[in-house]
């Protein structure tokens, strides 16, 4: 019995400790006087690695998810003679939920795991310590540009995802299944508010913060062995996926619940 409590206690302390270390890492990386000339090329490089290279997977999955939504929605809506409501169905589900969430999951798998592995390997090969030896703060040199790159890239990717998905729904619904072109767009425009786009954007920014933070921390805190890095990479994907889904519920409850 006592050993059970001890186990629970040790686990909680461990978890609290890692939350604390993650917070110190983020503060150490972000709180500094800005040096735009020196850090801008680093940021560019990371936006390229994190954002641009994730573009293909985001566009392709966005297109297919939009097309599937169009197809599934059509088969049900046509029973009620309401196939002209396909536009708002596709647009709202993409903007409010699927855009930010699926992009977040893809981003965690595509970019988050890469960040963790990269930083974990830097740690294992003692590149981080070498930077410190040269009086360069690895938090500012390595962590900060990657963090900002994630926060900038992910909302852009989510927006592209939603836009491409709506085009996919349009292709299937209008071009293939024969929903009226005009009513597809006009009913969509009547149903979608700027607030929906805005809320989706807020969601994607929150997911970006969460995913990049988890990925960077897991890499930075990993045990510098091949096994430790592999575990850190797995944890990044699992934890950020769970965090995305959990935060999505909370944000949806705040935005649309009342």
């Amino acid at each position: 019995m006592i050993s059970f409590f001890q186990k629970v206690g040790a686990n909680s302390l461990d978890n609290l400790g890692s939350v604390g270390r993650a917070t110190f890492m983020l503060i150490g990386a972000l709180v500094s006087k800005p040096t735009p000339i020196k850090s801008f090329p680093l940021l560019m490089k990371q936006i390229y690695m994190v954002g641009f290279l994730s573009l293909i997977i985001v566009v392709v999955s966005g297109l297919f998810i939009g097309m599937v939504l169009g197809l599934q929605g059509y088969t049900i809506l046509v029973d009620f003679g309401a196939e002209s409501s396909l536009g708002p169905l596709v647009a709202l589900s993409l903007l409010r939920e699927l855009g930010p969430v699926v992009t977040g999951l893809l981003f965690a798998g595509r970019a988050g795991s890469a960040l963790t592995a990269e930083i974990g390997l830097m740690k294992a090969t003692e590149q981080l310590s070498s930077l410190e030896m040269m009086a360069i703060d690895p938090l500012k040199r390595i962590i900060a540009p990657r963090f900002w790159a994630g926060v900038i890239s992910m909302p852009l990717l989510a927006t592209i995802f939603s836009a491409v998905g709506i085009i996919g729904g349009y292709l299937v619904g209008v071009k293939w299944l024969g929903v009226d072109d005009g009513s597809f767009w006009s009913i969509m425009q009547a149903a979608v508010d700027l607030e929906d786009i805005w809320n989706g954007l807020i969601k994607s920014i929150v997911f970006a913060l969460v995913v990049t933070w988890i990925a960077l921390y897991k890499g930075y805190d990993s045990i510098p062995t091949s096994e430790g890095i592999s575990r850190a990479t797995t944890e990044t994907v699992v934890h950020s996926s769970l965090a995305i889904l959990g935060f999505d519920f909370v944000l949806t409850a705040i935005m649309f619940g009342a």
Partner: protein
Amino acid sequence: MTSKRIEILVGAFVSLGIAAMVMLALQVADAGGAGNGETYILKAKFDNIGGLKVRSPVKVGGVVVGRVSSIELDPSDFSPVVSMEINQAYNQFPETSSLSILTAGLLGEQYLGLQPGFIDEDIEILAAGDMIEDTKSALVLEELIGQFLFSLKEDK
């Protein structure tokens, strides 16, 4: 040289993101829309506005001429006052015009139908801030059903 290539690709990525944003805002949400251009305000008092909302369209014969800009309750007699922004291109409505709250389809969105009245010599044209006197309230389905049931009982 590689850094320049990266900068170009990142620039393309960011512009693609902004283009998607603009496409969503304009094509999907139709922001701006009838909102741009000069407008003037007309007001009307109703008994019951049903499901009318801010930004609901104001239509004349099916053509959108403006949108509801605000809905308030008149504190003196507790009846809702609806303000509408009407496009300045349509500023020739006579004061005999009537407003009614209509529903698009059986279960659709509610909108304001503006019925232009007759024009005579001593009839003035509605100007900004004027009140439309002749209004018809929303049809509330529950009330209709209630009246229907009530009339059924009386028949027996």
